[in-house]
């Protein structure tokens, strides 16, 4: 090995292609869907679905484009039959960055299994994978989502109260509970004519006394009686991406829809294993933050260039203008954040333990994408603050990066535990 910074060709190609997709299919729709919250971008969804199908499912966008989807095995080695190093996660990160540069809300509307499929992939049996995941390669765009958060449990997943009990007569699971912040929950559960039938993966306890060991995930098919999308959140940003609150009242789910063992004693590591998929997604979420930040940064530089303001790289700080200094500082943040993402996914591809690097990349991306987008709005003054341009939207969109899939604080905790060699009990 050696230290190298050349994007692998497939990555560079994906970046190139997706830039056009972002420019043609996302940017022109950004403002409209920001202002028409809860309207589903059908044209975009259908176009992206066809395009992805036409390209074999992974040239235009990753087959499972969601943060938590592990890249399909065949993709990891497809370049030349396994001889070249695997680049699956690198490819996904680059794709997510490029699409988020287009519009991170619309990126979340990309058809596919998302976090729901990722959970099936991580915690399901081979039969379950086959049964539940095939639909994402069908004719209609299809979604799946993950239901984990509850009103009383944010970062603290062990506080989940949703309960699944086995009806011994019918051999069905009966689920009761309320889930919030389900990304894509509506498109995954509600039966829209234009969509294939999706599912949601619901986390529930089969034995509250067992704590985390009793936690299981259940595949709940779209339209299951007793399950209702009770609310679509109104958000500061990424408004085109639906965020649902879902209520389950005596929802009945076939016995075989449980991911992992149906009894507590046999599968104590199920929760941990599924949670590990979250770790894998951190650099990918970080990649989306970098994409949004880059959008804002490039927009700023274009506006400055229109006014003949070009950045004089190389000067001592004391000779710079305030604008130049800000742009240079932003570029330092942006470039280094991207390199941290790349390193973390490169480690994942090469099966190196990357918990530290993954969380560091998320910490940094959350930081820099809020800082950069907020600064861009400031620097553009009235132009930045106006909804005539997208800078203000990117500022709103960016903020979620530091919140979802582990807040900046949770990720700092993870980083700290890693560097200190502390357990969760030693550093709370």
């Amino acid at each position, binding site marked *: 090995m050696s230290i190298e910074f050349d994007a692998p060709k497939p990555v560079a190609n994906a970046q190139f292609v997706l830039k056009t997709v972002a420019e043609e299919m996302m940017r022109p729709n950004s403002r409209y869907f920001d202002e028409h919250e809860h309207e589903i971008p059908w044209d975009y969804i259908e176009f992206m679905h066809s395009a992805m199908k036409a390209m074999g499912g992974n040239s235009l966008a990753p087959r499972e484009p969601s943060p938590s989807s592990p890249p399909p095995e065949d993709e990891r080695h497809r370049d030349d039959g396994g001889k070249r190093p695997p680049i699956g996660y690198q490819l996904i990160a680059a794709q997510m960055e490029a699409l988020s540069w287009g519009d991170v809300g619309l990126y979340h509307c990309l058809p596919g299994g998302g976090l729901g499929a990722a959970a099936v992939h991580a915690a399901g049996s081979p039969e379950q994978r086959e049964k539940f995941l095939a639909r994402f390669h069908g004719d209609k765009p299809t979604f799946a989502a993950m239901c984990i958060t509850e009103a009383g449990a944010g970062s603290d997943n062990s506080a989940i109260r949703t309960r699944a009990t086995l009806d011994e007569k019918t051999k069905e699971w009966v689920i009761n509970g309320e889930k919030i912040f389900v990304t894509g929950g509506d498109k995954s559960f509600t039966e829209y004519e234009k969509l294939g039938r999706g599912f949601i993966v619901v986390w529930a306890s089969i034995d509250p006394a067992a704590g985390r060991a009793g936690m299981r995930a259940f595949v709940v098919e779209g339209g299951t009686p007793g399950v209702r999308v009770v609310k679509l959140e*109104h958000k*500061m940003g990424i408004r085109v991406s639906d965020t649902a609150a879902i209520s389950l009242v005596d929802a009945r789910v076939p016995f075989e829809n449980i991911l992992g063992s149906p009894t507590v004693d046999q599968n104590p590591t199920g929760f941990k294993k599924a949670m590990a998929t979250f770790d894998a997604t951190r650099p990918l979420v970080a990649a989306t933050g970098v994409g949004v930040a880059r959008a804002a940064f490039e927009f700023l530089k274009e506006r400055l260039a229109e006014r003949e303001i070009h950045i004089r790289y190389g000067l001592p700080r004391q000779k710079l203008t305030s604008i130049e200094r800000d742009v240079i500082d932003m570029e330092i943040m942006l470039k280094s954040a991207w390199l941290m993402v790349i390193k973390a996914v490169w480690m994942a591809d090469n099966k190196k333990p990357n918990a530290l690097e993954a969380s560091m990349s998320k910490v940094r991306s959350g930081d820099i994408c809020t800082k950069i987008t*907020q600064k861009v709005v*400031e620097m553009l003054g*009235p132009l930045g*603050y106006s909804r005539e341009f997208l800078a203000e939207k990117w500022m709103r969109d960016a903020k979620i990066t530091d*919140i979802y899939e582990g807040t900046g*604080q949770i990720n700092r905790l993870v980083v700290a535990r890693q560097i200190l060699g502390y357990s969760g009990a030693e550093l709370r």
Partner: protein
Amino acid sequence: MYSFDPTEEQQMLIEAVNKYAANDLRPAARNAEESGELPRKIIAKGWELGLLQASIPETYGGFGERSAVTGALAVEEMAFGDLAGALAVTAPSLFATPISLMGSEEQKREYLPRIVEGEWSPYTAALIEYAFDFDPNDLKTIATLEDGRYSLNGEKAFVSFAKEAQALLVYANLDGQTQAFIVAKEAEGLSISEEREKLMGVNALPLYRVKLTNVKIPVANRLGGESGCAFEQLLASMRIANAAAAVGVANAAFEYSRDYAKEREAFGVKIAQKQAIAFMLAEMRTEIEAMRLLMWEAAWELDTGREDAVKDAYLASTGAADMAMMVTDRAVQILGGHGYIRDHPVEMWMRNGRGFAMLTGLAII
């Protein structure tokens, strides 16, 4: 003497404004934000507090003198309730206060009584222009003296209530100096955008683009008449108002996130009991205090005629804008996912919080 206690009168005023902010503005804020309109009866109720009236002498229909400190205290409290509401209620000041401070005797007599004596009615001012490096001391809207009249040309942005305003105070560049001109609503060459401005924040405040094409103004309509006005003083007053509003919004976000952190449990304790959250709150509170004092000092300097007022108002406004962004961003962060959704006000305060870097000119004290 140093002293940090408001006078008894000020204290009473603060309480009255706080009550209005908490009971009227705050509860109406989200609806107003989403619908784009704050009910007039709420504006009217704010007007009845008499903030502007108390800053204008009896001769002209008011019942007091302008005090920048008092104004700053009131604006902070009102913005603590809701920024857009505060800017709406105080909009007539944008027109009346400069006249009261620097208008000619004629101008005062003509405009002040009618603004002050009745109900709230829309008067406004046009300062901001649409450029990333907008500089109030280097306006692109130009005033030229032609045949005994001023001619105004240029375009203004973010002019509140422009569409219905009886008259506007338009700031323009006269031979390199910023001066103000009273423009009647029916003036020829004055055109107001059909569409309202759409901004990231303060959406309950109706803002318009205003275009001036050879708008002819009698010389008597220049603020202060022949001799003009000391714009730096007015700008200082606007900057202090901006800083005061920033402190108010930041304090709202601080208190809300503090209370949330004391309620919200995670991992068996309240999140406020975690140093990471507690330290964030401590720093937010400290920064708010710092900028409030800086803003107070500038206001006091303005009241006592210190030269430093102009510079310190600039420092206060600059610092408070940065502070408001930091504090409101952290408030969202403390609420986490709940901070990002519009069920809670903090995301709105964060959007408003970013505005202080570019909204000087929408309030004056």
